[in-house]
């Protein structure tokens, strides 16, 4: 019997160890394409890069567009092109981390490839996963992708500014989310208007100072 994910899991453990001894937090952002991972990272860099040392790993199937959006904030960025691959793995993260000066970092954010299934299968050695969903994707994500929402430490519900234009039901979304993962924190915000962002950024600060 050969467990398929063992190799990835072993490397993830090594990555976790490497980050752990240097007190670096790593946060793995997972969402469908277009939910707002890069937008959220832009907000994080804009508001928090003055008070914590941030680096970003951008997983992208083919382009460097997201990496370039982040570079504007003067934080170190490493791009991993997966060449069509639908998820990042711990080996590519291990390689990417070599590009950073880990002794002078507090937190590494990883933007995973846009996909709600495969990225949840692959432990990258992160401290925790953060799931991002947007109101325009519908309210059925928790029940359709339970693994992701169980594995995630918290959820961001982005694009609340568009709620009025959708038939997104808060009630259904939250009820399903708490059925799949009771008590998981859900941050409702809009990267566009900035609504709800403060509370989320405070939570990130707490997580990075290891109080969560």
């Amino acid at each position, binding site marked *: 019997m050969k467990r*398929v994910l063992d*190799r990835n899991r072993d490397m993830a453990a090594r990555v976790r160890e490497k980050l752990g001894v240097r007190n670096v937090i790593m946060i793995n952002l997972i969402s469908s394409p277009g939910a707002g991972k890069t937008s959220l990272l832009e907000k994080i860099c804009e508001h928090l890069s003055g008070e914590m040392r941030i680096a970003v790993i951008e997983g992208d199937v083919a382009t460097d567009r997201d990496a370039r959006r982040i570079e504007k904030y003067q934080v170190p960025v490493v791009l991993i092109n997966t060449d069509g691959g639908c998820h990042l793995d711990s080996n590519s993260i291990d390689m990417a981390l070599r590009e950073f000066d880990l002794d002078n970092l507090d937190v590494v954010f990883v933007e995973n490839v846009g996909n709600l299934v495969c990225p949840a299968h692959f432990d990258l050695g992160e401290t925790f996963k953060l799931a991002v969903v947007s109101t325009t994707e519908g309210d059925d994500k928790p029940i359709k992708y339970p*693994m992701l929402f169980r594995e995630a430490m918290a959820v961001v519900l982005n694009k609340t500014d568009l709620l009025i234009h959708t038939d997104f039901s808060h009630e259904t979304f939250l009820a399903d989310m708490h059925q799949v*993962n009771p008590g998981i924190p859900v941050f409702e915000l809009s990267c566009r208007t900035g609504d709800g962002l403060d509370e989320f950024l405070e939570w990130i600060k707490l997580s990075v100072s290891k109080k969560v």
Partner: protein
Amino acid sequence: MVEDVFRIIMRVAGENNISRIDRVDIVIGEYLQIKPSLFEFAFESAREGTIASAACLNLETRMVELRCTGCRQLFLLKDLKYSCPRCGSGALEITDGRDIYIKSIEGE
């Protein structure tokens, strides 16, 4: 995922001097939400031109089994209800159904 599976199949075949793979048995935990039909489809394209080109794929799924960390109740996941049927607690650990593994490879 299919790529990872294939890499292991080829390695195991190499280690055992198998030059033609006839059958592969794979077990998929339901927690992973891998659709068997999609997996089969990807497997069929991955096997082309390899020593597994005529291999028969046998997929088996395993239900998600959970244990309540409070009252220690063991139960199978039903209707995605992640709470203990005995005490209602949501503090659970997954004891089965979260792995994908290759059970056996046959060939000569």
